[in-house]
Structure formats: C-alpha cells, structure tokens
C-alpha cells in the first residue's frame, strides 16, 4: 500500500519532510555522508511502507557515537 509518488497530494508531505531531514542532518556534523544518505532513505521509506529490521539495523550501525561514552 505504498503512496503513489506521482500523486500531487504526496507533494506536501515530501517537500516538508525533505526540508526537515535536510535541516536535522545538516546539524549532525559528527555523522558521515553515507549515514546521512541511508538515514534520509530510511525516513522516506518509513512514511510509505513497513521497514525490514535489517535495513534499520544497518543504518544504526553506521551512526557515529562519541566513543568516550562507552567507557
């Protein structure tokens, strides 16, 4: 039951969501470009379909954390 991307009604959500993702990720300066790309895709897919656990886990494992916190 995916939303049709050609449907103009999906436009409002996508444009606002895109802007929100761009804004949130630009502030995440500690994260890699690959992580940002994958998270963007994950969020986009989350609004249109169910996500597989493996897709989600892979993105989590790409996130950078302050290693000092693990001590």
């Amino acid at each position, binding site marked *: *039951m995916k*939303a049709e991307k050609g*449907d103009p*009604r*999906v*436009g*409002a*959500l996508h444009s*606002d*969501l895109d*802007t*929100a*993702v761009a*804004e*949130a*990720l630009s*502030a*995440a300066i500690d994260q890699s470009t690959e992580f940002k790309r994958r*998270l963007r895709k*994950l*969020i986009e897919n*989350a*609004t*249109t379909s*169910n*996500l597989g*656990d493996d897709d*989600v*886990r892979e*993105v*989590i*494992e790409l*996130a*950078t*954390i302050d290693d000092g*916190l*693990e001590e």
Partner: protein
Amino acid sequence: MEIRVLGWRYENLRGGLRDVSIDLESAPGRWTLIQMPNGTGKTTTMSLFRAAFSGEHLTPDFVRDLRAADDVDNGLFEVRLSIDGKPFRIQVRLNFKDGTHQYWTARSEVRSGGLEEGLSLPVDLKRLLTSDFTRLFVFDGELAKEIRAVGKDRAAMAIRTLYRLDRLEHLNVQIGRLVEEQQQRAAAVSTATERKGVTRWKRAYDAAVARKTALAAEQRELQKRRKEMEARRTKLAAEINERIEQDDALKLRKSQLDSERETIDRAIFEATTQGMGVLRLPAKIHPNVVERLRALGNKLTRLKLPKTISAEFFKELAEQPECICGREITPKDKAAILSRADSYLAEDQILVINKMKLALRESSADGAEYTRIATTLNGALRDLRRNKMAHDQLELERVEAGDTELERLRAEVSQLGRDLETSETKLEKLTTRDVIRQRLLDANDQNNIPLCDAEVRRCQEKLATATDTLRFVLQSERVKELVSTVAALALERLRERVRIATNAKLVQFVPSESLQVARIGGSLELGSSGLATKGGVSEGQSLAVAYAFLTSLLTEAPYKLPFIVDSPAVSLDTAVRREVGDLIPDLFDQMIMFVISSEREGFADAFYGRTGVRFITLWRADSERTEVRDGLPFFRSFHQVEAAA
C-alpha cells in the same frame, strides 16, 4: 490511496430503517445530498459509518438502542467501499438481545470473495482509521467544537496521522525493539553470573520506563485539567463581570476601578523592569554591597593579584634549551616547570581578573537606587491589593443585595483558585529540573520526570554494559534522536502549511470578520482580537473554522477520503452558508451530505446547477416503512410532503 463509498444498507434499525438500501454505484456522482428529516436516522447512520471504518467497540446500550422494534433480535449496517478500485463490503452485525456486535468483511483479495469475520481493511488504512481519525471525515458539529477545545489534541493528531508522521514514531519503536532483541541475544550467550546481572538491570530498566510512562500520563492529565480550570476561571470572571454590570452604580465604580487597575499594572511593570535591570548591577543593590565590592578590589590590588606571570610563560620557558640566567634546562627541570606552570593563571584569565579589579575599584553606583525602586514597587503592590479588595467589595455588595448566583460563582472561583494551586504544586514536583526545588519538594525518580529520565538512562547504560551492547544502544539513541528531530521539524512545517491554507479559506468563508488561526497546537488557537470580550466564537464561526481546517488538511493529504457530513450548514447564517456551499464541493473527490429541508436554502441550492450530483430523499412513510426517492425535483419539493405528513 483512494477510498470511495459505493453504497450502504440498513436492516432492522430504529428510525424505520428496517430494509433500506442506498446505492451510489448505479449513478456515480461526486456529490450526494441526502435529505432526511429529523428522527429518520441521520445520527445513527453517522455513528455506524464511523464504526464501519474504524471497527470501534460499540457499547451494549448503544447496540440495544438501535433496535427497530421488539419483534427483531438482529440488525445490520453494511457499507460498500472501493479502495484503490478494489471492492470491499463491511458489515456491522448487531445482536439486540445481548447488546453485542461483530464486524465482517468481504474483499476481492479473498479467493472466495465471501465474508470473513473481523474488519479486514488494508493494513495501511487500518492504521490510519482510528476512531478519532474517522471523525475528521465522517464529520459532525461536535468535532468542530473539539478541534478548538484545549486538551483534546485533535488538530495536531490529525496532521501527524494524515501526513504519516506517526510512522516515524513507529520507526523509533522498531529501533527500540531491535535494541531489546540484540540484548536478549547477548544475554543468552553470557555466563550464569553475567545473566544474573543482565536480568537485574533489565528489570530495573523496565520498571523505570513504566514509571516514566505513568508520570508522563500524569503530567498530561494535570496539564489538561489546569487548562480546563483556567478556561473555566476566565468564563466565571466574565459571568461575574456581567452580573456586576447589571447594576448601574456598581458598573460605574467598576469602570473606575478597572481604569485605576490599568495604571497600577503599568506602574508595576515599569518598577519590575527597572528592578530587574538594577539586579544585574550588584553595586546598585545596597550601599553595603558597593562598600564590600570596593574593599575586594582594594584587597586584590594590595595582594598584587592576579600574578603578572602567566602559565604560558612557564610553558614556553620549559621548551627553551637554557634559562634566562644561562643555566641549562635539563629534562628533569622541564618536567618540574611544566607541572608547576598550572599553579599560575592563563593569560585570558589574568585579563578577566584585571578587568574585574578595575570595575571593583570604580564601583561608584548609587547603592540606594534599588531601595527606591523596591519602595515604588511595594507601593504599587499595595495599591493593587487595595484595588482587588475594592473589586471584591463590589461583588460582596451585590451578593448582600440578594444575588445568590453571584455568591455561587464567587465560591466556585475561590475553589478553582485552590484547585489550581494544588495542581501547580503537583506539576512542579513532577517536572522541575531545579535541584534545590527538587530537594524542597521531596522529589525523586518515583515522582519527578527529569529524575526518572536520568534513572532510565542509568539503568539502560548498566544493562547495555552487562550485555556488552552499549555501542549499539548509543548508536540507536543517536538515530532515534535524529528521527524525532525530523518528525518535530516536519510537523512544524506541515502545521504552518495547513494554518496558512486554513486562513486563506477563512477569508473566503467569512470575509466580513477577521477570523484567523494564529497557531495550530494541540487545538486550533484563534488570533482574532476581541473574541474573548465578545463572549468567544459562535457555533457558526466554529463550524467555518473547522471546515476551513479540515478542507485544508484533507485536500493535500496522501489519502483521498470521502467527506461524509451531517447537517453541514444548519448552524451557519445564510451568507456563510452560501460561501461554504460554493467552496467546499470542489475540495473533495466524494462528498456525502445529510441535510434537512431547512438547509436547502443557501447550501443545497448551490448544488442544483452542478453536474455529477445525486439528490436522494429518505423519509418515513409510516411508523414501519421508510421511503427512498431519487432526483432533484422531489428533493426540492420535499417540504410539501413533509408539511403534508
């Protein structure tokens, strides 16, 4: 995704709906106007539409109340839908004897095409069509009020669900589940002693999360109650004013007191602003403070503080091959110099202290300034108390003259004041982050959300360490944090988009009034000036706001939903009706409108010239039988039949 209603039928329901069928499939139209006189089952139909879409639980009393007559034990409401072109049939089967009900669905995906028990809509749609959400498009006047009611959270909920931002919340739930699974796997391969630790921290973590959820629910409930109490207090104040103003002499005195109050408020504001400014300059607080600051400045000078040699000087010296006296600096000397260099201040610190010294020596402000402002402020506060007492006196005089209603209102205001105070204290204890207040209020992780939050994090870290999954936990937290930020930012943008569209429609609906939505929070907050003093928004205005909001919300959403509405124009005056009648038809792909004959003028007649409109009239021919007639001529002339009946 597109949902259309193709028709519906009733069996053995009250209002003469014993065997009535409405078929929209045979002559499909974008708009359907169904004229039903009062008492023929409009409200019943709306309730059953909502039930059929959402699968909500119906109470036994509600079910029994739908019974057509004592001679029937079972009833039925069936809706036929098209979902993305595929046919679905939903039945609400009613058992009047025991007050129970069952949902059944027939859909094309099932090979037999037959009925199966339960409401089997596509998963995506089932998630959307909650009981609350369904009320947005199977719409009645009550929702118009609720959209504007504080604490109901309808407006924000609608945007979140309709634009699928709730899916981002589900993504975070999924991440949480993955963490839990990872920890379970890790715990399964650990030793017995480690497993004991894991179990202990898992229990502590679960308990802390449950406590946090309960505290958050308590906070929401208290906030909701506080808003309701505040709204009630405002209403009571308006009612009290109204009663005072019924007496001309009291009205005059009240007006004088109100004007005096404005002057006092201004004086308090000015004195407070000045006082706050002075508080930022310690020398202006009291002569003793000036004196002590100067003494401190002099002491620093006498002690030659700060030292003129900085830590940087020694660090540079340690790097030199020899000292200024020519002696060689050995590695041992170097280590000694570096270790002692930290006893000296850095250059920037010296700079700050020197500036302080200068400021202290030059502290020449008038120490009595604050005292003067405080005296003015105290005077203004005394005036305020006097003014309040005089106001109170007015009310008491009226009560003594026999106004028992005013006496009751005053007692309620007084009780509300006490309840609000209790509520504030509870909320503060629940939410304060101030360590001193937490101590004073005896707050701990059992009754304070920030402390409980800290406990959740502590248990989570302990659990993660015990299961050796700390890295994954921290990564998950980072992703969840980013997803929540995206959801919040997107919601903010969508709210603003819907708000602007709503206001543009309001200008068209009610051009003569400056009715505008200032903010979409949990509810719609209106920004028009003077609404409160005019006694709030009328029912018609409320409906206009709700239409403007819903049409803005639904027309841009990724779902095409039918808009089913009961008495769409009954509380609107004729001018607004005409605007609504002209504007809303184009905003939906399918509209089903239940109207009464008085709504024809100004609203239904806006559809007479359109093509693609079905006009249906449904009325009770006698106590047992309901008639259905198609066509505009009968629809228009129905009042004669009604009058004759």
